[in-house]
């Protein structure tokens, strides 16, 4: 290339333009973030933040966690405590049992995927399939298969008393009261304006039942963010609970999703039971007294994987809170800190 002697202004300008443009192009290429490293760059108002509710005041947590029991299940659905504090877990197409130290003691194969279970003091197992109940002996032999509850049925929980079986049917928003032979006695929790029953409201199938002291039936009413108690004839007794993201309330669109009655030894001499409740959305397990007042947090959201749904819980005779974690597929064991 021939170069002119005199420096032409245009030449200089062009050279500068080319240099600047090339440099700018290089800068732009280096500034590219095609891999999303820099995040969305959206302002605060565009970001959903529930982090503040995912932290629990440590002073409220009165429980500590022990070593969990791995269930070995792919899908873990329901948990119950049997004689000698044996832990029974329903999931996949089987029931697995562990002794109080977490050693596997039994495995019962089932024909259908179980949703829930309850175990009698003598070891008889009642397990809820989606639309019917099956009864198994302690040895794992099927004793009975009750007829289907109906096509819409989604059985989500079973609770037992000495002579009654309570089956929560989330599909029809009702608790079915059976005798031990499988005869339907009563339907509990249906809308009844005269008796002041607003009806069970569920959005996801998650009605849970528990029996207190062999006399009172506790039912979750997740769509109304409360728990309700009934006498066995279906008369409403008490209810408590309110919607709140705060630890004192039940969070989200429908909670609690599971309950258990705390054994008497834990409580002051009160005529009513204290309940352990489990929630989804902000997965947390709490203990509330008979007025619904928060007494203790067993495990806050930080103890569970985000998005955990489908906790089930129970409590054994020693007061250990056993939480079935469907994400970890394990039974998480919580004991009081001062024990």
């Amino acid at each position: 290339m021939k170069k002119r002697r005199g420096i032409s202004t245009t030449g200089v300008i062009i050279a500068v333009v080319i240099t600047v443009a090339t440099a700018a192009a290089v800068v732009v290429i280096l500034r590219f973030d095609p891999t999303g490293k820099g995040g969305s760059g959206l302002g605060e108002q565009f970001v959903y933040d529930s982090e503040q509710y995912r932290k629990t005041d440590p002073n409220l947590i009165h429980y500590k966690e022990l070593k969990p029991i791995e269930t070995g299940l792919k899908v873990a659905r329901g948990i119950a405590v049997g004689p000698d504090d044996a832990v029974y877990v329903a999931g996949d197409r089987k029931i697995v049992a562990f002794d109080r130290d977490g050693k596997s003691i039994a495995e019962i194969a089932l024909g259908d995927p179980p949703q829930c279970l309850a175990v009698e003091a003598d070891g008889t197992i009642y397990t809820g399939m989606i639309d019917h109940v099956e009864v198994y002996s302690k040895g794992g032999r099927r004793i009975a298969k009750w007829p289907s509850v109906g096509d819409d049925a989604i059985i989500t929980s079973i609770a037992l008393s000495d002579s009654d079986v309570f089956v929560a049917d989330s599909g029809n928003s009702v608790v079915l009261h059976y005798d031990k032979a499988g005869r339907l006695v009563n339907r509990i929790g249906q809308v009844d304006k005269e008796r002041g029953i607003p009806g069970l409201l569920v959005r996801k199938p998650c009605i849970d039942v528990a029996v207190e002291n062999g006399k009172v039936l506790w039912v979750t009413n997740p769509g109304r963010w409360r728990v309700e108690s009934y006498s066995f004839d279906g008369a409403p007794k008490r209810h408590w609970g309110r919607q709140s993201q705060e630890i004192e309330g039940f969070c989200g669109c429908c909670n609690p999703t599971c309950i258990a009655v705390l054994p008497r030894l834990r409580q002051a001499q009160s005529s009513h039971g204290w309940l352990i409740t489990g929630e989804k959305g902000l997965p947390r397990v709490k203990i509330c007294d008979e007025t619904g007042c928060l007494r203790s947090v067993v495990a806050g959201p930080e103890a569970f994987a985000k998005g955990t749904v489908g906790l089930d819980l129970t409590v054994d005779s020693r007061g250990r809170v056993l939480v079935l974690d469907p994400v970890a597929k394990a039974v998480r064991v919580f004991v009081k800190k001062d024990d």
Partner: protein
Amino acid sequence: MRRLIQFLIVLTVSASVAFAAAKLPTWYNLPETTTPAPQSDIFEYIDVAVLAAAMALAAYLALKRRSRRGLLALTIFSLLYFGFWRGGCVCPVGSIQNVTLGLFDSGYVVPATVIAFFALPLLFTLFFGRVFCAAVCPLGAIQDVVLVKPLKVPTWLAHALGLGPYVYLGLAVLMAATGSAFIICRLDPFVGFFRLVPLGKWGQAIIQDGSWPGWDLGGRFNLLALGACVLLVSAFIGRVYCRFVCPYGALLRIMSRFSRWRVSITPDECIQCRLCEDACPFGAINKPTRRKNVSRSEGKGRLAALILLLPVMVAVGGWLGGRVSPALSGRNPTIRLAQRIRDEDAGKVKGTTDAAEVFRESRRPVVELYEEASGIRREFLLGGRLLGAFIALVVMLKMIRFSIRRRRDDYEADRADCLACGRCFAHCPREQARLKRIREGK
């Protein structure tokens, strides 16, 4: 700011249970989720047809009619149609990556239209020279129309920069073959402009409901800035992207070297008038060789040395490529994730990223991720070595080409460099004579 990961596991947990929806009043009709359809395939087949027709026309205009004006009109049409109307995507340049990924990943299906976009310009070039570059490629067209004051790039610099397309091609193939990224698309400098004036979208909206959707000032700032820079440079250095960057150009150069027909400056014979010497803004005109030059033996010695050096250089290139492969592999999402998880576990970094969080929530074993990552790293090592060897080979072949003396008697358009734009025609007095004959009806 940490964001929340939800529902990954949850859905698998509750999946087996069906549940009735809300009990709504009977008069209420449950609305459907709307699903606006994508543009019909038929348009893509039309695009392929337009591509083929445009190239055929370009070949006719460049080789037979020898009409610069016609080529310019076609260039503008292509800019409007392939650029602003279809938004510049998929283009043959980007299709390299689809084809590569299709060849390496049997699970990836390349649509027939994309294959056609990849193959047709190559085939046309094999027969008619780079007529695709001349007047069909929208990327070339947008640079061509802004070329105001072409500067001559010194030959040595042009040759050095001319390696760019091969390096870019090699990188793009490596990134596509490993399923890491389509870097050509990421760094396409002009697609931002094409989207700025989305004629196709406007046209459709106007046809459909008579409305004009307005300016789409979206096109990402970075992309527009890069495009502006490249256009600014190409106002002075003709088709700077085509000559020194375009990876598809590298393929077309190879094809063009062996093309059946090609553009010639003169319609019949070269009278060595030198009038066309500076006619090409892209430096693609070769001068005749001077007779009295270096002794043949000297040239031969150099050639022999280069040929002997070739395997050595290729090996060195391969080794170097292997050395840089870890840096290249950082672009792969799996490797990035594995590195992040490793760093987090080792406490080297604080906090977490969304991707790491998703991985942890998935409860996939870390070992599995590491194994997958090291598999990809091995691919990158192999790919990096091949890339290095390829670049070394290109460099060596270029040097060998320089040392082979080939006699040239006339002014000729370089087989590989010539973009068949037809700018040189008017400079040739023989062409003027031909046009005069035509005008006179002879």
